[in-house]
């Protein structure tokens, strides 16, 4: 994880009069790009706040005359339970896979053994496979454990398939912790676990933040396992939203309000802790 986006830039280029026009061009480009990214969000909010009879294709872009907050209550009534499912799922799966990832990363980076890299590459492959290639056996397995339709089957799947990325992030993070620290502790007579507890774990907070944010977002947003391993009572919010928006005759304020609700947790995490989110993002491109 040597690549991070620095929060502040290097020395700003001096702006002389000649550069003025180019700077203006720069900002024009930025505004056009921002419109592309933000217009869908404007439409999302505007539609969610319209009353159903105010929604028609001809006035798609108009801001609602009267704000109709009821859409959110309706949407919560339809997918609120699924939001809570998602919350439980994401919190439990994130904590478990972060803890396992931290231990794995520690063992792989500080207690290197022959073939550790090969083993790690074999583990990482699990991060990239299309889950369609394991879905049928996974479904059978979860069913044979009696966990089909329960949130625990889904948690199991997310913890296992989250292991490669959490291990990757922690391994790269611990690689930057000087080996000398570990060696000094060994000389003082500390063993595997006491080094972890007293040296590594206290240094891990930023690593945990990155992993937790990344994993939480991934689990919250996932759809394929959600659609395959759960039933009505345990479905997470992504599946519920897809059903809410799927019908043709639906009035659009409802799925739009539902989309806002479903997006809010990860969006808040991103806005409040974006720096760590980006670090997880860049860690996903593998290079250590």
């Amino acid at each position, binding site marked *: 994880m040597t*690549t*991070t*986006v*620095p*929060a502040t*830039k290097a020395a*700003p*280029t001096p702006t002389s009069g000649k550069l003025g026009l180019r700077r203006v061009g*720069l900002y024009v480009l930025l505004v056009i790009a*921002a419109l*592309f*990214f933000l217009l*869908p*969000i404007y*439409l999302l909010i505007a539609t969610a706040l319209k009353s159903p009879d105010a929604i028609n*294709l*001809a006035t*798609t872009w108009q801001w609602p005359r009267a704000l109709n907050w009821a859409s959110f209550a309706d949407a919560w009534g339809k997918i609120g339970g699924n939001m809570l499912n998602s919350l439980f799922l994401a919190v439990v799966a994130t904590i478990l896979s972060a803890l*396992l990832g931290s231990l794995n990363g520690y*063992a792989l980076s*500080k207690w*290197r053994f022959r073939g550790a890299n090969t083993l790690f590459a074999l*583990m990482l*492959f699990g991060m*990239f*496979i*299309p889950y*369609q*290639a*394991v*879905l*049928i*056996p996974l*479904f059978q397995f979860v069913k044979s454990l009696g966990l089909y339709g329960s949130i625990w089957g889904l948690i199991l799947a997310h913890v296992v398939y989250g*292991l490669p990325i959490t*291990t990757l992030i922690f391994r790269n993070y611990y690689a930057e912790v000087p080996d000398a620290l570990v060696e000094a502790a*060994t000389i003082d007579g500390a*063993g*595997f676990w006491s080094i972890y507890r007293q040296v590594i774990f206290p240094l891990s907070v930023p690593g945990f933040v990155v992993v937790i944010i990344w994993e939480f*977002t991934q689990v919250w*947003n996932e*759809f*394929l396992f959600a*659609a395959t391993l759960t039933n009505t009572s345990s479905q997470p919010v*992504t599946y519920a939203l*897809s059903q809410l*928006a799927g019908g043709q005759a639906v009035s*659009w304020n409802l799925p*739009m309000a539902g*989309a806002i609700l*479903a*997006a809010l947790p*990860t*969006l808040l995490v*991103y*806005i409040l802790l*974006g720096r760590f*989110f980006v670090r997880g*993002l860049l860690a*996903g491109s593998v290079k250590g």
Partner: protein
Amino acid sequence: MKGLSRDRLWSIAVLLPSVVLLAVFVYGFIARTVYVSMTDWGNDPAQALAVNPIIRWVGFANYQELFTGFLQGRFRQELVSTIFFTLFFILGCLALGLGLALVLDRNPRGEGLWRTIFLFPMSLSFIVTGTIWRWMLQPQGGVNQFPQALGLPAGNFSWLSSTEGIWKFDWNALPLITASVVGLVLILLAVRAARAGDRTRAIVSGVCAALLLGWALLVGPNVRLLPAPELHGFNLALIGIIIAAVWQMSGYTMALYLAGLRGIPEELREAAKVDGASDFGMYRHVIFPLLAPITLSAMIILGHISLKIFDLVYAMAGPDNTYTSVPALNMYLTSFRQNQFALGAAIGTILLILVAFVIVPYLSSSFRSEEGHA
């Protein structure tokens, strides 16, 4: 720290559960999927959900059915769609991401805010993105109203429901096309090897190319996968989904490129300026070559995402729109709606092979170089 000390045993004990889990859930399950794909499980609806279904070994029959069977035209179109989708999705993300990174590298005011705006779609799920864009791309609304802002008549492109396709080719010509493309690549390799002075390699690739092209010219035209011509091309309804996917993922390439640009030492730029390079010349000869490895990783990450994509399609166009469908979606429907598990497993295996082509060389090269350092 030599030998099998107690600490070393602990480190193995800690790794063991994860290794076992991944061995079972990744490699074991893949093996099981490949096995299922060679049976007839679910091809007879009565047997699909039986407690103890009678499952027979059928070898490659399911694959043959997918590539040449009369009923599986949908799958063949999806295979073509996913290639086009991947191509345009990667191009779109790279172009937009690089553009945004270059603009942000000029240190505009409020850089953090701009970055936040370009990256936020990354935090949404494909289902949310798909729900929003489905509404954006309604036939008479949303995007089709944009021309009106300039006083022009509204657009009438049917974004998600178009049934038109372009660049169509006959599926029967697929072996011919494949052989020709591979042959041309081999010729290219032969020429490069010859230039580099590697005679054995030049001769081997040259002979292989000659064999393939000879086959393509003499035998290929007579191969018929299907009794009748079947046309597949780039379905225009996919354009809307590609735009939404680029909207969501181009921030990722921007972040990658920006990290790369910020990693270029200031001295290099200064040196280029001292040597009299223009801005353009500096980008062309100094900066872009340094960004090449980032472009490659971005292509690989985006490529594997796009080969697997299906939730976006599910949310935008619905699962039953055959004009926008992709293999990953078909696998889900075939297995869990129609209970044709063997056929679904075959589609899953084909997807895995496609993704492995992209990922395996990348992972092995990543870790071979690292092992060299260690």
